[in-house]
């Protein structure tokens, strides 16, 4: 036994075998060298029949971006920057065109939506709305779980799901504290955190505001086909799936985590106290609420004619005209990396489609299999839903949608159907903490174990696939979306 003084305790001793230590410390370098070699191999390989040399280079950039997005060896935004620089450097597209895609309408819509959400959070309006609705579900333990599922779901219709999850987290913690629940001992605590996370996730697929992947998907659809899906059109197509999944999630949570408590009066008292603490709505809150309401009405009614981004940015400008927020607030609340991520993803999608690289991949793989459109959509939906458990949902859209749209064209499937089949399931990550921010936030509470999430999340994934497919096959034809 070696006595350890406080001084020696600060020295970290890596007791693993030398080979393992060297390998683990240089793994990152080896990974980048392997990726560079793969890039070189794809570019210098004899161009296959049906693929142009430019398409081959676009494909090489796509494969490298795919690996970097999946492995997260680099931050997502930096991988997108790599794509936008590599596309003109490899002659896939003109540099003016590549950089102009950062100015895509979807990028500005996403930016506007993030700024509007930041204003709602900063002003306290989002917390007030959440508390106002939550206190109506204070009748019992089951009712509270229902409220914790429905309130974030409804709020994620109108602001990014991660912002909803982050805003609700302190409220859920207060509920847990008031009921004196302990990690590892309370099933009710698990259901509280999971309900809030799943509510935000399920609600986040309903509109363009819940997740930036949705406008990203529309941008890729527009860049590659010239077609688009309107704000209301999206909602009408997706909301039935959302409603069914909320019901399913509610019963699954109740089934898996049987509540050990019935009396939640102390939690209701906490909610009441929080509402009292907030006092009456301020002028800023009312004004922000009004501007948000007008923006939503405009997106629904005149969004297609005026442009979603124009409405979002006009709403943002109005908030500054009325001095409802400061630029400092916005800078603190918005992560500008989002613009780089989405701009790069749109450029890459356009690059692989315009050079027919996506078409070649589709012909060499999916198109050579004898699949029915129903089978194809089922495969795409399943792929999206399980891929999104491991990688960012925006990355799933950026990787799958350009190929999906090309395949859809060959199968005679409406590209709008393919867009929905990739974008909606890519938002449904229930299984792993790192699948989506809402799950990560719930996991960070220390009340939920990974196995809790995996068990219920896997079942919810399978049910989501079934519900999505049934709605798509039975209900969508009524909207003119056929496959």
């Amino acid at each position, binding site marked *: 036994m070696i006595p350890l003084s406080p001084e020696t305790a600060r020295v970290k001793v890596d007791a693993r075998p030398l080979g393992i230590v060297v390998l683990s410390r240089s793994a990152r370098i080896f990974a980048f060298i392997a990726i560079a070699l793969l890039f070189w191999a794809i570019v210098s390989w004899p161009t296959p029949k049906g693929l142009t040399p430019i398409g081959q280079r676009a494909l090489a950039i796509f494969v490298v971006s795919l690996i970097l997005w999946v492995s997260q060896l680099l931050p997502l935004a930096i991988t997108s920057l790599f794509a936008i620089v590599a596309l003109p450097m490899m002659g896939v597209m003109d540099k003016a065109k590549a950089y102009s895609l950062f100015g895509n309408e979807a990028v500005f819509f996403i930016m506007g939506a993030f700024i509007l959400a930041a204003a709602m959070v900063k002003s306290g309006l989002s917390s007030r709305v959440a508390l106002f609705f939550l206190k109506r579900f204070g009748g019992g333990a089951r009712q509270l779980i229902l409220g914790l599922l429905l309130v974030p779901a409804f709020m994620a219709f109108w602001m990014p799901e991660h*912002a909803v999850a982050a805003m609700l987290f302190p409220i859920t913690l207060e509920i847990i504290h008031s009921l004196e629940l302990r990690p590892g001992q309370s099933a009710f605590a698990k259901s509280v955190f999971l309900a809030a996370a799943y509510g935000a996730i399920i609600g986040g697929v309903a509109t363009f505001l819940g997740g930036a992947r949705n406008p990203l998907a529309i941008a890729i659809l527009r860049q590659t086909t010239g077609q688009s899906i309107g704000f209301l059109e999206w909602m009408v197509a997706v909301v039935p799936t959302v409603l069914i999944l909320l019901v399913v999630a509610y019963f699954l949570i109740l089934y898996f985590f049987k509540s050990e408590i019935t009396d939640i009066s102390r939690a209701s008292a906490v909610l009441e106290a929080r509402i009292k603490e907030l006092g009456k709505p301020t002028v800023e809150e009312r004004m922000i609420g009004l501007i948000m309401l007008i923006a939503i009405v405009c997106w629904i009614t005149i969004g297609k004619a005026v442009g979603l981004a124009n409405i979002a940015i006009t709403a943002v400008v109005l908030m500054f005209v009325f001095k409802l927020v400061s630029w400092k607030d916005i800078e603190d609340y918005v992560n500008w990396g989002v613009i780089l991520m989405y701009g790069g993803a749109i450029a890459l999608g356009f690059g692989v489609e315009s050079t027919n690289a996506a078409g070649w991949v589709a012909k060499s793989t999916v198109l050579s299999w004898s699949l029915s459109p129903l089978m194809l959509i089922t495969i795409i939906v399943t792929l999206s839903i399980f891929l999104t458990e491991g990688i960012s949902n925006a990355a799933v859209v950026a990787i799958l949608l350009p190929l999906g749209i090309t395949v859809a064209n060959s199968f005679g499937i409406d590209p709008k159907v393919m867009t929905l089949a990739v974008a909606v399931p890519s938002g449904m990550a229930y299984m792993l903490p790192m699948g*989506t921010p809402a799950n990560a936030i719930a996991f960070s509470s220390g009340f939920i174990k990974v196995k809790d999430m995996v068990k219920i999340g896997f079942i919810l994934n399978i049910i989501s696939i079934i519900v999505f497919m049934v709605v798509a096959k039975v209900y969508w034809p009524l909207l003119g979306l056929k496959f």
Partner: protein
Amino acid sequence: MINVVLALSTFEAGAEAIASAIEFSRVKEAKLFAVFVLDSTVPTAIFDKLTDIGFIGEKPGAELESAVSAEYRRQAAATLVEVKQAADATGVDCEVEVAEGDFVDKSLEAVARHSADTLIIVRTRKSFLSRLLTGTGMENLIRQAPCEIKVFEA
């Protein structure tokens, strides 16, 4: 009298294992030092990823991190009160403390500070996925501990 350090953290604690540690101290007539490490590794990793994949802004990120830290402190305080009460009830001389930082480093520091003869750790049975997410600190601690080490499965 021999000294025993019981190292706990948010992701590595369990009532049965704590009870076993207290019983071990009672049998050995040891003084028990219960250290709850507020392990920043897991939340830091989570919030770094959130910034990267969820594009959460600086302020909401900081607010979330502070909410999580406060929650971990509350959990630490509640666990240590339970340990102290259980130790007192069985007549084990027990001191409790909270440390902040890396679980391995802080546990080793506590071992050195209290000249511990035995380090007791609680290991939650985890799947491969869980170990991937919450790290392999426990294995590092077992390798580096300069004293006898007892591992109780939670």
